[in-house]
């Protein structure tokens, strides 16, 4: 490993104003320099001696150069995310303390030679040195689907333009449109390799829009959560009705739409500040700060449906037929209908079983039932 002459010059230029970054500390005292790393201290260095001493702690120097010169953007979500990618400590909003315990520079440098893997929803991100044999501190990032973690790169479609991620994010494996980018239906079979930090953040931004920004806000304790009641009351036009959705229906809605099997964002919004939704919010790394547009659109339908009165109906069913109705609902709700084998008549949601039930119990006007409460 070597330090470029330019880097030494830049660093010695900055030294007079003081440098303190990731364990590297340089201060000027009466024309001489003090250099510190967690492992060593040098005092009374003139400029030539400082350069010599810096050569002895080159990992700290190239690390400083990568973060302060290449990445920059102090306080941005982009920088915090890239630091998360390699388990580096992430500064608090005050830039003085760190919110997370991270690895020190030598441990990170060891790990970056092999590549450091992190998971972001269904994404697997690897941070690594550009040059593994003679690392100069420059990192690049590889990105692919977690299901492809063990795949040979030659078997994957390889991309390097972040904008290609838009097409990947648009359709599921059956070719159906994915209106919700954070649904756990991202297709596999692709890879982005050798991305710069900025390109990685842009690519993740196309696959999971705004997740990095909201994660960063949560990390800093300033995530602005809008609970259900605030979000619903804000709506106008055709969505004006959604604040009429009954309290318990909001629980059912969250169970229907917002659990991990449907969306990888971790729900932080509740019914209101003092009234939690009685459904698990999920375990993902990035938060959901308000009901999304899909939930709003579905809530409109449910608000209208829930405005109907309940009635008591009488209909003839065997016990097995009653159970079969539950099986059918369950199969559709779990997206399981495609998996049920054609001849598996033991499954209540089998197509022939459903057609038989329809032939027997469903007339031209629907299920043959009589309202008995009027």
């Amino acid at each position, binding site marked *: 490993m070597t330090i470029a002459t330019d880097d030494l010059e830049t660093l010695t230029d900055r030294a007079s104003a003081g440098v303190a970054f990731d364990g590297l500390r340089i201060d000027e005292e009466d024309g001489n320099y003090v250099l510190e790393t967690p492992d060593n201290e040098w005092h009374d260095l003139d400029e030539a001696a400082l350069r010599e001493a810096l050569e002895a702690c080159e990992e700290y120097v190239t690390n400083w150069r990568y973060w302060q010169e290449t990445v920059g953007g102090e306080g941005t979500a982009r920088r915090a995310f890239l630091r998360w990618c390699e388990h580096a400590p992430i500064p608090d909003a005050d830039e003085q303390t760190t919110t997370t315990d991270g690895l020190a520079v030598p441990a990170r440098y060891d790990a970056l030679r092999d590549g450091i893997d992190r998971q972001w929803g269904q994404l697997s991100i690897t941070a690594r040195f550009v040059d593994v044999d003679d690392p100069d501190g420059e990192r690049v990032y590889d990105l692919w689907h977690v299901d492809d973690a063990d795949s040979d790169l030659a078997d994957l479609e390889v991309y390097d333009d972040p904008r290609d991620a838009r097409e990947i994010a648009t359709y599921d494996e059956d070719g159906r449109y994915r209106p919700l980018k954070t649904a756990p239906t991202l297709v596999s079979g692709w890879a982005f390799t050798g991305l710069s930090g900025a390109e990685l953040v842009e690519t993740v931004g196309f696959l999971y829009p705004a997740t990095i920004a909201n994660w960063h*806000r949560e990390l800093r304790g300033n995530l602005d959560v809008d609970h259900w009641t605030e979000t619903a009351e804000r709506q106008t036009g055709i969505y004006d009705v959604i604040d009429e959705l009954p309290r318990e229906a909001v629980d059912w809605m969250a169970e229907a739409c917002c659990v991990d099997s449907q969306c990888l964002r971790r729900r932080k919004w509740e019914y209101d500040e003092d009234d939690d939704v009685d459904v698990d919010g999920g375990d993902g790394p990035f938060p959901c700060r308000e009901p999304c*547009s899909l939930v709003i659109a579905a809530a409109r339908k449910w608000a209208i449906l829930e405005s109907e009165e309940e009635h008591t109906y009488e209909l003839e069913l065997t016990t097995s037929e009653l159970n079969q109705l539950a099986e059918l609902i369950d199969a559709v709700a779990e997206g399981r209908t495609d998996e049920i084998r054609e001849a598996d008549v033991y499954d209540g949601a089998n197509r022939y079983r459903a057609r038989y039930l329809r032939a027997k119990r469903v007339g031209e006007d629907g299920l043959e039932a009589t309202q008995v409460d009027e």
Partner: protein
Amino acid sequence: MQALVIAAHGSHLNPDASDPTYAHADTIRETGAFDEVREAFWKEEPHFREVIRTLEADEVFVVPLFISEGYFTEEVIPRELRLDDWDPEKWDSDGTSASQATLEADDVGKTIHYCGPVGTHDAMTDVIVQRAETATGDPDVGEGVGLAVVGHGTERNENSAKAIEYHSERIRERERFDEVKALFMDEEPEVDDVTDFFESDDIVVVPLFIADGYHTQEDIPEDMGLTEDYRLGWDVPGEVDGHRIWYTGAVGTEDLMADVVLERAADAGADIGDARETVRDIAGSVADADHEPSAGTGAGD
């Protein structure tokens, strides 16, 4: 640093609805005029609500990819962007003359230049003309040809019709086409009877819509009698009542739309350098020499 946000409707159901938004954003990215360019949507992600926080720039130009001033541009987008001091009065518009308003976004502490919609900008007139050129494949189209500019109409708001009439009048004043008419889907004069309104044998029909969808690809071609069933497609030109109808689709898909977005941002103070020339090179030139430059001439500047 300055950033551009293109704010569009998007769709929960149609994956193609956002294509023009992405295409125009990409064209502007190529110019390098903005440090960041971001697409934002009402029905897709990033949502209007969360787009500003994804930007590092302190100065953000938001251009709505909508046709008219109305519910979305005056109410929904500013509310979702958290432009708390917004009031439609700040545009001081007669329905087609909004330029921009400078505001703060409450959640991020950034300066937001909230621009009027692309559909009412003067440069949109050029895009309609260019669509007539690409639809006919004739860069000099005009002589002996009628042009119908088609809009939705008043179903939602009166400004929808105003935008159509505004551009129709501007094109008429150029005296390039023999006839220019504004037609509507749900009010008189109706696009259903398109051939009744023209004497010219050739009629170019340009729908002033942002994205292709149900209206432009199903309703309008069937209503005009270009095809019995949109799924069968139609000829360009197609024969209707002895006229030849040149109809392709939503004007919003035209490459030159990126120029309108840029002009909106420039009118609001964005430093775009020579980006407009780059975009016009990419999009191909508008082949009418007599058109006046749009920048600085629009009402509301």
